């Protein structure tokens, strides 16, 4: 046979430029707002503190970054943002949301590091620095496996629109072919 045995499509035709969430494996972990909350729920002091510190380190690198406080607060709420240690190329300030909690990495999810969590303006749900929702359960819970990955470092984008100028040339339905 010279053709595919089957052609399965996961998400075609479900709307444009939105990646449909697939059924993803969940892993055991735990979420806390503070070290105190962590120890209060029976975890060791050492484990709670180590994960918190890891989360804080990752927070500085991976938290979403903004060049205006207003933009940051629009996403995370009034007085929920702080000045990041980074600077823009022109020396301006960079803003990022306050860490609202952390997700335990070690022990529970196979050796991962603790990572920071944030809450969007008006939301009770936690999100990772890569904007993956992980629910609002304090303590032991399950989250999608992908949410436990170390979030990407985020420096501030200084400009956009540097690609695509050729795409606006006329007389072309599509640039393939």
């Amino acid at each position, binding site marked *: 046979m010279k053709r595919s045995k089957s052609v399965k499509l996961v998400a075609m035709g479900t709307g444009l430029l939105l990646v449909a969430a697939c059924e993803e494996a969940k892993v055991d972990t735990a979420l806390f707002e503070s070290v105190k909350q962590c120890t209060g729920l029976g975890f060791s002091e050492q484990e709670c503190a180590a994960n918190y510190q890891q989360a804080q380190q990752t927070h500085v690198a991976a938290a979403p970054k903004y060049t205006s406080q207003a933009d940051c607060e629009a996403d995370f709420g009034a007085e929920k943002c702080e000045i990041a240690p980074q600077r823009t190329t022109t020396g301006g300030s960079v803003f990022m949301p306050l860490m609202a909690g952390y997700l335990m990495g070690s022990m529970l999810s196979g050796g991962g590091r603790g990572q920071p969590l944030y809450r969007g303006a008006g939301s009770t749900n936690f999100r990772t620095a890569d904007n993956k929702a992980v629910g609002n359960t304090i303590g032991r819970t399950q989250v999608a496996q992908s949410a436990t990955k170390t979030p990407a470092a985020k420096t501030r984008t200084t400009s956009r629109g540097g*690609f695509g100028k050729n795409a606006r040339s006329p007389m072309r339905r599509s640039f*393939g072919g």
Partner: protein
Amino acid sequence: MDRIPVEPRVDWRETAEAHGFRFHTIDDERYWDESLYYRFTLDQIENDLEDPTAEIEQLCFQVVERALSDESVLKRLGIPEAFWDYVADSWRNQERNLYGRMDFAYDGTAPAKLFEYNADTPTSLYESGVFQWVWLEQAIERGLIPEGSDQFNSLHEALTQAWANMGIDGTLHLACCKDTEEDEGTVEYMADCARQGGLETRLIYIEDIGINTDGRFTDLQENTIDHLFKLYPWEWLMADDFGRHIPKSGVRFVEPGWKAILSNKGLLPLLWEMFEGHPNLLPAYFDGDPAAAALDGDFVRKPLFSREGANVEFFQDGERTISVEGDYGAEGHIVQALHPLPDFGGNYPMIGSWLVASQPCGICIREDASLVTGDNARFVPHIISE
């Protein structure tokens, strides 16, 4: 090879919509056309199309090797000097290629002749790999075509497999331009294949890509882009404002930079120069090469970077007979021996032969009522049947 009229499925439009195939009709003109199909024998497919495709791919690799050892070749191809090292590194680091489509003129008897190689941003992918396949399955089921018919089309399986083997750890970004429904469909389909290959994907418009303080490219959520499938030609990436950031961006591109050598009509004269007389190649020369006199006034002149037939000119006995408008050509031209597409009752099919990870894996046919396969050519399905 025969052109056979067939009854379209009564519900083909609904089926297309249900499968996310939204560009079946473009500007009120039919693009997907199942009122006919082409029938091939297995010998024709395997000996006349599949084997030559695999063979030419290997010849192309020799052209890449040569271009990277001879800067004058890169210059003739119009690749900006600032990217010579980048292109060379992408080849030496064996950055993996995903796909491409060779276009052939083939009449069922004489050797297929390579018109060009769309090695960087080939389109018609979804309709080839998915909708053509669905048509075959349903057409057999409904008795519209002979039972036991097959199709040269393992494109979907090959793509899914190739993504799984791409060695990508982390997120794959996929980009196309805004306001191009057909390209959005292609990118969406590609993302689907990549997810089935086990990757995590994010879609972004090429215009929305940002550059950050570290010289890394970013998406709209400030994630750095590490792996980028781009349905946007290399020559445009290189010419764009952000092009200069590419070499230090740390991005693994699909297709890789070395495809800039193959997705260029300059490939055709280079192939001819190195493999003159190959049965599947047409004589071709860079414009202005005195050797082009061998074409004896019968040739087609094509810009190095033309797409969808734009700016192509036909010459017969030295006189220009057909000229297609467009805005390509500033970068130079090639000339290729005139070899008309086969005539099936006033219809001229061009056969696109797909490669995934450099292996032939299917064909698609686009049929036009003129000798130049332009962007109003119709896509028609095919079967293999003895």
